[in-house]
């Protein structure tokens, strides 16, 4: 076993502090359903620095998409933000008037939805769709057409794509167009929901490289929502792990992937097959997430956690700092180093 603690110290010591662009605190979003209120996001907190790429990771139903959508004001009709604050570049997005919020959301925060095919209008050529978005930022006429060609060039597409309809493009090209649309008005933050999930491996890598390159070149911040730890490991500076509506751990990618403090993060890392270490047995996490109609009183992972103790079932651990820039919500985070070793054993998770 390599000395993980030493690596840990290295990573945290060499990190420069980055000015904070977005600060989400105790965000709560509920959906009204026929079975009552679903607390889809139930006290989620995370930060994003300027020109940083954050991976918002979690499994289906953990609230990652809902959390991200509430930043961009594109929640479903039966959803309501019931608490918390979202500080973005010095303003609280949740207390802005509808009109102000909308203007921020068009020009400063852009959203790349999950399926590029759904974000493009099938009956209009790509140029028209780019011009429409540019028009929202009062860029029109010749300048807009020039900008449209520039945007396609930025995402690595030829100008001939301007006259194409969405169905004439491959999945990867459509995803690039969706990114071009997001970049149109020079946003400072792009929220991308599973931007590469539907793509083939080679195309996925190309799109990720394009996104990372743009992020570095344009100093734009990115929140990438994904269930794929390998994708996050490849391109994100920071990771926030969500479970059952809450952020259970956040921090720099190397720290979360190597020195996780929350048992759920440890479990996720173990459950993910690694091409270069594929011979070992994968370690699944037994059970399933709690019902968010009526979440349990204590830690929401306690039911599935091999390290749960009595207090875990009765009182919820707050998200606390375990190292500079590294937050975790676990009563036993002080013992993380020894729990990590245990978590690598398949027998730990067998019940």
């Amino acid at each position, binding site marked *: 076993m390599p000395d993980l603690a030493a690596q840990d110290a290295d990573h945290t010591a060499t990190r420069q502090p980055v000015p904070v662009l977005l600060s989400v605190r105790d965000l709560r979003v509920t959906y009204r359903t026929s079975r009552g209120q679903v607390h889809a996001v139930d006290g989620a907190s995370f930060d994003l620095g300027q020109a940083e790429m954050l991976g918002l990771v979690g499994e289906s139903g953990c609230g990652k998409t809902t959390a991200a959508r509430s930043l961009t004001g594109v929640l479903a009709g039966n959803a309501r933000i019931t608490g918390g604050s979202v500080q973005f570049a010095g303003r609280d997005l949740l207390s802005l008037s509808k009109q102000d919020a909308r203007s921020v959301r068009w020009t400063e925060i852009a959203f790349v939805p999950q399926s590029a095919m759904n974000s493009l209008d099938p009956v209009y050529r790509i140029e028209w769709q780019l011009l429409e978005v540019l028009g929202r930022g009062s860029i029109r006429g010749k300048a807009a057409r020039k900008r449209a060609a520039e945007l396609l060039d930025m995402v690595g597409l030829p100008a001939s794509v301007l006259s194409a309809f969405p169905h004439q493009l491959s*999945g990867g090209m459509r995803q690039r167009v969706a990114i071009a649309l997001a970049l149109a008005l020079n946003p400072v933050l792009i929220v991308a929901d599973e931007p590469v999930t539907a793509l083939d491996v080679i195309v996925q*890598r190309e799109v*990720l490289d394009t996104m990372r390159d743009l992020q570095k070149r344009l100093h734009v911040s990115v929140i990438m929502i994904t269930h794929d730890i*390998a*994708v996050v490991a490849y391109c994100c500076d920071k990771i926030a792990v969500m479970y059952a509506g809450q952020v259970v751990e956040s921090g720099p990618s190397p720290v979360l992937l190597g020195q996780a403090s929350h048992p759920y993060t440890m479990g996720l890392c173990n459950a993910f097959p690694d*091409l270069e270490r594929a011979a070992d*047995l994968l370690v699944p996490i037994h059970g399933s997430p709690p019902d968010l109609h009526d979440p349990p009183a204590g830690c929401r992972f306690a039911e599935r956690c091999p390290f749960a103790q009595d207090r875990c079932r009765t009182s919820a651990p707050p998200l606390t700092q375990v190292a500079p820039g590294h937050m975790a919500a676990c009563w036993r985070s002080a013992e993380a180093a020894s729990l990590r070793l245990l978590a690598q054993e398949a027998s730990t998770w067998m019940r």
Partner: protein
Amino acid sequence: MDAMIDTALVDVRNLSKHFHSGGSTVRAVDGLDFRIERGETVGLLGESGSGKTTTGRLLLRLTPPTGGEIRFDGDDVGSMAGAALKRFRTRAQLVFQNPFDAMNPRFTMRQSLSEPLINAGIPRAEREDRMAAVLGQVHLPDAAGVLGKYPHQMSGGQLQRVVLARALILQPVFIVADEPVSMLDVSVRAGILNLMRDVRDALGLAAIYISHDVTLVRYVCVRTLVMYRGRIVEDGPTAEVVRRPRHPYTQALISAVPVPRVEQNRAPIPLRPARPGGLDLAVGCGFRDRCPHAFERCFAERPELRLAGRGHLTACHLDP
């Protein structure tokens, strides 16, 4: 040809499926040759549109080929009829991709699992035992509890186990699993992948896992076939294909797979963009427009699958 040829469970020769639309021909599957031995677990890797799902459907005779033949245990699948076809339909089974689509929402697990048993004429008295046994095989020991449930009362992972159980219940010798875990969450997926390994080892049945996911195939399959644009470009032991890929497409594919760690040691191999409007796949190599090494011969002559190492075949003019 060696003496093994008679013992292969599945023997595919020059298998093709061409679709004709508006005067043009789509070569979805274009001249496949491969064999699956008894008890062998083979991965079929390919990107969307490579023809891997069509290949799976052809293997189970869910769609007729336009050329070539499939021999199953020595018999020509295309000419099977009556009792022989019925026997084939019990011995070769499909595992569906999306467990929520694969199960009838109005059927309990008991109804879903007993349907194939009824079709196969298994007497009522035997059915309960068979169902309990197969649920045990997929690690759902509480048969009584599971059998009374409807799909919406179960988690995705449990449901995928039942889907697998339904494929196993007639004791097939061959299963085709098309993207068997792509709809599942990571924490659940690991359990299903382990289960597939257990089933592989315990039942010794032959299987072909169709997937775009190299890590899945690496985890479950002993041998791997790589498809690109309707053709097999590489066929070899999985560990070899992953560690020392021979075909330029496989090399690019492996280099692009992200690993769940911060140290990403492999630099991706850049490919040229695909030729807009597609290629004429009737001549030359199907990868010639994107391949970083393409030369004149690749445009003129179709590379055949040839032995490039121990049990490792590749279809590339670069390989001597």
